[in-house]
């Protein structure tokens, strides 16, 4: 088990966002957090990274407690994060955005700029462009590429399929499968059930700050009741 989240409670000011959230991710898996927006998926990922420190609970990464640690220590431990708003460094070029992550990482491995650019050829073309001037799709690839450059053991992806055209989602699925093959564990939060179904092994359904269901993707897909209640209208 690479990540174990136990009884995590997170607040924004006075509002209790995550309520006793517990789940786990096994090494080599792709796990998704599913749910409509506003249910606490992003907060869960931010809590793991240490960006929104939880008030109580325990987060074990590779059996080491990382709750209460600053985000950079989580990064050093082997976590990488792609936020939903991508957070490309606007002043840095495409190339610098990638290299800086590798430079700061304490891990080496399969991923380097060559390979990331192979994965996302458009990044090669935009190499010298400032992050500010990239399109939304390019930013998404760059943000994902930046996360890979650290050679993490676990990647947290927030809304990877959001805002992508169907064709692009198709290639994203391939990319994620490719990443998975390189022994990177992935925890993603998404609304797109069809996308999740194609890439994930398991899913957790989040509703109003709680985990309400753990199920294999196929299990969720075939459960119209769950879909209706938690995912669609």
């Amino acid at each position: 088990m690479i990540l174990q989240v136990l009884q995590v409670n997170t607040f924004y000011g006075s509002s209790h966002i995550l309520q006793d959230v517990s789940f786990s991710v096994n090494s080599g898996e792709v796990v998704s957090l599913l749910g409509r927006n506003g249910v606490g998926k992003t907060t869960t990922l931010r809590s793991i990274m240490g960006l929104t420190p939880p008030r109580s609970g325990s987060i074990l990464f590779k059996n080491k407690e990382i709750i209460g640690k600053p985000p950079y220590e989580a990064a050093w431990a082997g976590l990488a994060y792609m936020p939903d708003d991508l957070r490309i460094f606007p002043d840095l070029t495409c190339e610098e955005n990638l290299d800086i992550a590798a430079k700061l990482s304490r891990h080496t491995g399969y991923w380097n700029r060559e390979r990331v650019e192979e994965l996302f050829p458009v990044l090669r073309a935009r190499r010298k462009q400032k992050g500010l001037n990239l399109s939304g799709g390019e930013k998404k690839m760059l943000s994902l590429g930046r996360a890979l450059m650290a050679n993490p053991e676990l990647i947290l992806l927030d809304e990877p399929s959001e805002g992508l055209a169907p064709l692009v989602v198709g290639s994203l699925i391939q990319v994620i499968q490719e990443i998975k093959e390189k022994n990177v564990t992935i925890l993603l939060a998404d609304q797109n059930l069809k996308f999740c179904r194609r890439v994930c092994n398991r899913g957790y359904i989040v509703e109003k700050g709680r985990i309400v269901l753990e199920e294999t993707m196929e299990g969720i897909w075939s459960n119209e009741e769950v879909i209706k209640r938690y995912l669609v209208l």
Partner: protein
Amino acid sequence: MLQSIVHVCLAGLSAGMFIWLVASGLTLIFGVLRVLNFAHGSFYMLGAYFCYTFLRFMGENFWLGLLVGPLCVCAAGFAMERFFLRYVYHLALPYQLLLTFAFVLLFDDLVKIFWGAGSIGSPAAPGLSGSISVLGRNFPVYSLFIIGVGPLIAVAMWVFLERTWLGCIIRAASSDREMASAIGVRVPALYTGVFMFGTWLGAIGGGLAVPYVGLLTPGMGETIIIDAFVVAVIGGMGSLKGAFLGALVIGLLSSFGTRFIPTFDMFLTFILMAVILVWRPQGLFGEST
């Protein structure tokens, strides 16, 4: 007339570059840490005093003094950031300003206690003490040196920020502190480092002032800090490019103003500052927020 214009330009350039030396550190610190450091003038003053002391101890070697002096000031910068400033980043603006203001008072009196209250006439820089004739009028070599050093530092900072890893990390952290942290930047340490670097720049300005102004006095930082503020504001808070051009504008404005408008006064510089702030609060080159 040509001679006059050229010399007015040269004087303006050297004045502007001199302010830039001080304003660069102030701007860098503001850009990354978002703290407007009143005590930056004190670092300028400390830089001058430390350089002077070392050059006296080390056989009148100005260059050695310039090398060692600012490093000592860095230590003061470290202490200020690590033990005080760090705890007020999250507080409202007045607290931050007040904290740095308290250090102004502190440093001023410490200088008086250690170096005496009187002004100290300081020696010229060896090798640069003479002057050369420009269109029939002497211009000090050292002023030319300042005119050269200013852009040199600007270029060096540009290279550092744009072409090195550390610079890349600083740019990343200054635009998105949180994400920088999430990819492994130890932000608190980086802040300390940047503050020390800014301090060092201020102190270098002070060290270079030793022969330029020719005089050390306690409280010498207070006049320069307002100039540096004006420059930083005009250029755009946190923009080094803006501060560089702002310094040029202020230097030339005051030089031409002094020469051609007999009643010239800082009134004009403050009008310029006010107009720019009203018209473009983010300054000439600041990022719009």
